[in-house]
């Protein structure tokens, strides 16, 4: 036992160790502050937070969980990209491979899908929590607006992922969704006032979403690119703003 402790002490005293980990677990106020501010991941947090803010029953961890699930989706999503090709002739077969051939593929795909649903739920309840605690009130008004945009992006992330398995469920769900786009006033070919501006099936907003007049190979590619690249980048940018504003608008809300 003593030998192990001795070895650990020797190891943590080496130059290599000290160059990587700047400080140990010495329980001093200074060290606790350093743990937060000298760690790139943790410095998202302030060094100190109000005591009420760490109560589970205040935030229910919902914002943090939403972000965590986003990270989980990013990791599993990247792994899925190794096995999935957004080509109408292959996509469904790749799904079957994931379910039956790829090691742990079933768990990977299933948990990615359930996590997507979970994120929609946690983001909705995060919004409810923020509303019920009045946390959108001055000076945090704009951060609420950013949150609403992130809610929309969460829906869109989930929606674009829906088509990717290229099965009946996704195909007809996207049909329902994009047909609603066709009914957009002025911009959709079936919407009011569309004819006046010469908006037709091959130049309206549905056409832009699907990359054609019906759901086909270009639609699958568009859904894939928006799902894996476009929307995550936009969401990421807005998340940076959202988290930054939490700090800059006076930290987490609390009794005045």
């Amino acid at each position, binding site marked *: 036992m003593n030998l192990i402790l001795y070895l650990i002490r020797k190891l943590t005293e080496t130059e290599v160790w000290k160059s990587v980990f700047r400080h140990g677990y010495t329980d001093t*106020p200074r060290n*606790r502050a350093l*743990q*937060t501010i000298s760690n790139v991941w*943790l410095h998202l*947090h302030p*060094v*100190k*937070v*109000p*005591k009420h*803010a*760490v109560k589970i029953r205040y935030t229910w*961890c919902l914002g*943090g*969980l939403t972000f*965590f*699930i986003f990270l*989980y989706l990013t990791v599993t999503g990247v792994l899925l990209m190794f096995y999935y090709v957004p080509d109408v002739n292959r996509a469904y077969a790749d799904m079957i491979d994931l379910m039956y051939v790829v090691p742990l593929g079933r*768990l990977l*795909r*299933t*948990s990615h899908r*359930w996590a997507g*649903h*979970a994120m929609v739920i946690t983001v909705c309840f995060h919004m409810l929590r923020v509303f019920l*605690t*009045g*946390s959108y*009130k*001055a000076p945090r*008004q*704009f951060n*609420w607006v950013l949150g*609403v945009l992130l*809610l929309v992006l969460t*829906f869109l992330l*989930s929606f674009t992922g829906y088509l990717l*398995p*290229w*099965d*009946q*469920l996704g*195909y*007809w*769900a996207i*049909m*329902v*969704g994009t*047909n*609603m*786009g*066709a009914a957009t*006033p002025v911009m959709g070919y079936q*919407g*009011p006032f569309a004819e006046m501006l010469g908006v037709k099936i091959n130049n309206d907003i549905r056409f832009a979403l699907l990359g054609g007049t*019906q759901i086909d190979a270009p639609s699958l590619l568009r859904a894939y690119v928006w799902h894996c690249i476009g929307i995550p980048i936009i969401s990421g940018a807005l998340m940076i703003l959202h988290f930054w504003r939490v700090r800059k608008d006076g930290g987490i809300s*609390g*009794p*005045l």
Partner: protein
Amino acid sequence: MSNNADAQVAKNNKTEKVFSWPNLVAKEFIAAILCTVILLAYSYYVDAPLRELANPGEPENPAKAPWYFLGLQEILVYFDPWIAGVVVPSIILMGLMAIPYIDTNPKGNGGYCFWDRRFAITVFLFGFIFWYALIVVGTYMRGPFWSFFWPWETWSFDFPTPPPSISLPNWLGIPALLAYFGFGMLVPAVLFWKFAKQLGFIRYNITMSLLLLMIGVLVKIALRLMFNIKYILQTPWFNI
């Protein structure tokens, strides 16, 4: 004297701070682990859905959007697609974004309370529950051709033909709409003039328009279910 001291202690408690490391970080860590465990366990036991290969020649019946959009698909029964699929969600989003700017009540910032914000909380909870109630109906109670089934009934193609719907003639529909929005704006302003004055003219009008539109969706649903009314207003370009 002791009251003063108590107040001072209470104030200190409110602003009392703790180190993020480990008080906050440890909880986040545990939450993340629990979340992962639950996700993986659930995924292990319940497979994600995967149906047959997409086939443009064989429509699903019923074809349903992802569950979080089923509230919108559900109100397609009561409204034309441009309202149900585009106008309603746009107004919801704009209304949500407007909330911090129209709710100027400074009370209840940073804590759960109901009485000081009873109007705001009632309206928001009503909207939140309305949205999910429509999703539940759309998910569990709509079968082939989007016809209604109770959750304990089995879906079949053998359902009664819906009764023919009627539309209000414009000489009735236009005054009805004007009366709904006119009285809807004026009556609360008279009854709750203090509240209206506090909000100010512009904020009051935005708040009440949004509220009336939300209740209007419910009214239209009720009109259809009780009197089979299809349209209230008809024009050559669009119908409501």
